[in-house]
């Protein structure tokens, strides 16, 4: 192949690639194809491998446990040995059951349906530049893009892309992850930002006067409409005024240990809408209190026609110059008691 021909071929390949890239950016067709093929095939490979690995691990553990039991309990009866061996064999199942029970107790309301999924792998392949995990559910069984992932300890992340029976989930520690949060006690809002695996997370846009403290738990505020409100996410580790911005510089650590993640819960929207809460009384507008002399005059005016009515027909009295009826605003006092309601008086 001559140099000129190689150059021509390279140029054509580059043009073809750029065309393909632009077309895919617009349509996403190749992304869909790659997700459906790559993710699905890798899940089909990793699923059985994971089960085989677990099985081998169990077998190995059981073997060693059995040896240990025999050495320690050599004088025990055969029946007791069998029971012990069975107990050891069940230990892994019991541990899994405990984890799943803890997951199942995750408090979510009827709007969210929890679905358990197994973690198949962490980041896979050269294209895995984000902090992700691969899970054993796809868009056919609950893992659509955007669905949040939790454990009994707190928020894990959300589904990034999914094939039919497998999905890639973005972890909250990824630098591209942004979550609207509140301090659980201070109720101060902020945006929780990932910085990468093993690095502390940052909480941005927290006002300087916000009473956030170290050790406080951050929960999802639900304002981003991506996660249910109230999910625990991270614990504050350091709070200090920022040297560069007008906000606080806050560092937080995720509550979930991502290195030991084996099962997760997907929170799929169930489609059930909770009934609206009872409407409160109409709100009152704020205004100055009615002066005592006006109140007194009004009472006198009300009493006068009643007294005159006994002697003669009552003369039409002018209506008090008050504002037309408006909805009122209620404000609770700091002590917890309702503040007196006022009405606006037009002089």
């Amino acid at each position: 192949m001559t140099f000129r021909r190689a150059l021509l071929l390279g140029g054509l390949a580059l043009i073809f690639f750029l065309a393909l890239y632009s077309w895919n950016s617009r349509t996403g067709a190749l992304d869909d194809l790659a997700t459906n093929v790559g993710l699905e095939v890798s899940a089909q490979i990793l699923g059985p491998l994971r089960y085989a690995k677990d099985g081998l691990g169990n077998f190995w553990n059981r073997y060693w446990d059995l040896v240990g039991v025999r050495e320690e309990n050599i004088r025990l009866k055969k029946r007791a040995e069998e029971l012990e061996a069975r107990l050891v064999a069940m230990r892994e199942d019991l541990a899994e059951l405990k984890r799943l029970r803890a997951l199942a107790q995750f408090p979510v309301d009827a709007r969210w349906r929890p679905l358990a999924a197994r973690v198949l792998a962490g980041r896979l392949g050269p294209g895995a530049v984000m902090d992700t995990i691969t899970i054993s559910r796809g868009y056919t069984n609950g893992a659509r893009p955007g669905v949040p992932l939790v454990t009994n300890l707190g928020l894990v992340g959300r589904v990034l892309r999914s094939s039919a029976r497998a999905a890639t989930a973005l972890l909250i520690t990824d630098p591209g992850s942004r979550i609207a949060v509140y301090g659980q006690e201070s109720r101060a809002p902020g945006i929780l930002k990932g910085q990468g695996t093993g690095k502390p997370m940052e909480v941005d846009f927290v006002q300087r006067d916000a009473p956030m403290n170290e050790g406080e738990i951050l929960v999802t505020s639900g304002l981003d409409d991506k996660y249910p409100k109230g999910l625990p996410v991270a614990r504050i580790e350091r709070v200090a005024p920022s040297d560069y911005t007008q906000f606080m510089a806050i560092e937080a650590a995720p509550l979930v240990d991502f290195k030991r993640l084996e099962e997760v819960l997907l929170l799929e929207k169930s489609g059930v809408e909770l009934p609206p809460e009872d409407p409160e009384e109409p709100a009152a507008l704020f205004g100055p209190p009615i002066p005592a002399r006006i109140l007194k005059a009004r009472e006198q005016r009300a009493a006068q026609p009643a007294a005159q009515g006994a002697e003669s027909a009552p003369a039409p009295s002018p209506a008090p110059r008050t504002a037309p009826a408006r909805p009122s605003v209620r404000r609770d006092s700091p002590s917890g008691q309702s503040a007196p309601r006022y009405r606006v008086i037009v002089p």
Partner: protein
Amino acid sequence: MKWRQIGWWICFIILGVWVQSLAPGLDALVVGVLILLQEDDYRDMLWLLPLFILLQEGMGSRPFGSVVVWYAATVVMFKIGRWLFDTRNFLFMFLLSASLGSVYFFVDWLMAPLQNLNFNVEDALDKSLVQALFIPFAWRGIQALRKGRDREDDES
């Protein structure tokens, strides 16, 4: 014979995906591309290369395109190296893997702003280093397996 070849490559893919699940960011299938190039097996490359690309793009978390660039660069680097060295030499593979490690870093750096992704220098360096170290030893192992298979074929 043909089915045996297909079976071999399927086993290679299964092993590759499993190895990749153990080392985040590693491309284990690129060794297959190098083997195909070494053996001038363009007929198998015709179906294996698109399959590798689809698998890697699907498993990853970035938009389509970076793996295409990465494999194209691998092919180009191999072709350039072929002019200068004997491709079955371990030293050649060592030098090639070192260059591919740099290419891996370069592709990450090139594609991150194009795909609006964060570029983490430390992470990219770690992955490039692991990739560069992985290739020659994996290639050596697979070469040994291929030789054993070829010897069995010759005997039969």
